[in-house]
């Protein structure tokens, strides 16, 4: 008995027979036919949207929000003012079909002011176009810069923002559940910052983890963790309640 695609589908239980049509080639026509019904007439508009035209459209609609736009290796980047982020994202998601948020991440530039880039990678599935948004945050002495959350636009941003908070210490205002995701819950520092040492902390005396700054451990909580160039890293935990992470809003 042969099991090519057609025979396999014909062998499906009876309720599933109607699904044959779903196993199709992924061409542009199929993609367009998958659009919601009200959108079908706008095919011509969607065909025209590319990353470059998106940049122009955002520039027209939000002239005050754009700091600069960059093109490198064919990839479009829009640098935005943080306060306009949610409005721009909502516009991109609703009107320009950027329904898929690929990732959110950050880059630490300790020598520069503002010190952090927060980077959003967007994808428009109907238009096959990709776009990068960028914010620059973190003024002098601002230990935990704050960025508005985009969870209301893309629910999937939840975990990415938690990851950025965990590894960089950037907080997201309005996030429903901002807590650490990869590091242990009682970790006090943010490892992907450039001043965080690669090979652990130099503790004054040997300790079971060598590099675990648990403040529940009486031997470690009283010690000060320093980077190789002497910058103090751990935050004063006594200012926070048990349930509150440093940098987050009080629940």
């Amino acid at each position, binding site marked *: 008995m042969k099991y090519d695609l057609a025979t396999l589908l014909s062998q499906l239980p009876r309720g599933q027979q109607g699904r044959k049509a779903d196993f199709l080639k992924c061409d542009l026509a199929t993609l367009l036919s998958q659009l919601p019904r009200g959108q079908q007439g706008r095919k011509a508009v969607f065909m025209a949207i590319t990353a470059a035209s998106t940049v122009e459209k955002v520039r027209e609609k939000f002239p005050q929000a754009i700091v600069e736009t960059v093109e490198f290796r064919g990839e479009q980047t829009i640098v935005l003012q943080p306060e306009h982020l949610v409005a721009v994202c909502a516009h991109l998601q609703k009107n320009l079909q950027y329904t898929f948020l690929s990732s959110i991440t950050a880059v630490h530039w300790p020598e520069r002011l503002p010190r952090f880039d927060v980077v959003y990678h967007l994808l428009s599935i109907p238009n096959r176009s990709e776009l990068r948004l960028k914010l620059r945050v973190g003024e002098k002495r601002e230990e935990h810069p704050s960025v508005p959350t985009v969870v209301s636009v893309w629910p*999937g941003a939840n975990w990415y923002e938690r990851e950025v908070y965990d590894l960089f210490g950037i907080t997201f205002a309005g996030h429903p559940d901002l807590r650490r995701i990869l590091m242990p819950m009682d970790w006090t520092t943010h490892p992907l910052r450039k001043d965080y040492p690669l090979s652990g902390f130099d503790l004054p005396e040997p300790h079971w983890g060598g590099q675990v700054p648990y403040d529940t451990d009486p031997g470690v909580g009283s010690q000060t963790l320093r980077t190789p160039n002497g910058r103090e890293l751990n935050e004063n935990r006594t200012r926070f309640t048990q349930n509150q992470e440093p940098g987050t809003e009080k629940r």
Partner: protein
Amino acid sequence: MQQQEIENVYTVEDSQISEDGQRTDTMTINMGPQHPSTHGVLRLILTIEGETVIKCVPDIGFLHTGIEKTAEAKTYHQALVLTDRMDYLAPLCNNLGYSLAVEKLLGIENEISDKIKYVRVLLAELQRIASHLVWLGTHAIDLGAMSVFLYCFREREMILDVFEYVSGVRMMTSYICPGGLQAEVPAGFDDIVRKFTSIFSDRLREYHDLLTNNQLWLERTKGVGHLSAEDALAYGASGPVLRGSGVVWDIRKAFPYSGYEKFDFDIPVGSNGDVYDRYLVRMLEMDQSLKIVNQALEGMPTGPYRVQNPKVAPPPKWQITGSMEALIHHFKLFTEGYRPPVGEVYVRTESPKGELGFYIVSDGSAKPYRMHVRAPSFANLEVLPLMIDGCLLADVVAAIGSIDIVLGEVDR
């Protein structure tokens, strides 16, 4: 995690008296991190009422190895080996994504010869089959079908033999590297791949015989772990999870990389978004991958196995004794590495789990200033609470298996 929530595991919470006088207790239990069906070290904090799951909070990070941090201290070539360790069931697909990103950053995409592209596609598709075989075996064993596991690993061994033949290593090959391949493809490579492709089609038929129309399998998977297309898109799910929900999307078709536009293959798409659809999508994907492997074997061009650019790939060893310039290039490459221009790139590829993205920022030095990995399993795991909301406790295992997570990639 709120402290209180952590401490409440294995407890019966305050019982409430419902209208008809019944006591309704909810219980919070811990599934994992050392549970065989969580496919690694995933911990789920499940709130159950009777046998129904009413809340699920995934807790990840047990396998966090700081790969992104480590990569900042390695040269571009050294950071390649870290990518193997993320999705350890598909290391070659990770190598491919990373290599494409570095090549884009260097601006040498046009120098990559057709032969390199074909070998890369061939190996990536074999890797996809191998990854799906592990998924099928473990998914089936989770749901009580022991023998499928043994058959799947039998075929996976043949693929790993191919990798061993070509690179000397079975799993963490690092064979695909920025600038081409690590070494020349050995003679007899065709035969060993054909040995696999000639039998695999029949073996795939056997798996279909075992599971696809098996009543027990249908009962465990049909209508379980439903995920709607809207939710899958909104939460950034990708790969077979997204296609199982009926969204026609594959990066190999949408943004063809490494010469995928030259191959003829279909994208299987489900429609119900349940565990069975995701199962069928992956099963049919293996068929398509086999088709691509066969096409790559047929049309394999000849040519160099790495770019002829001494700033990126070392010159042949025999030149070093005769040419001062070659010696200098060799020395510079292995002591210092190459220096891409200042800039940033994001390259997305279709790994067996979904969209694998590499975001690399260069500050002009020989080490990546920042390497971020968009891990497909990370986003796919985020939709797990949606899938199992209101499911029975036993179906949680089916839902986790159908996502095909690799915790090395989730936690990085």
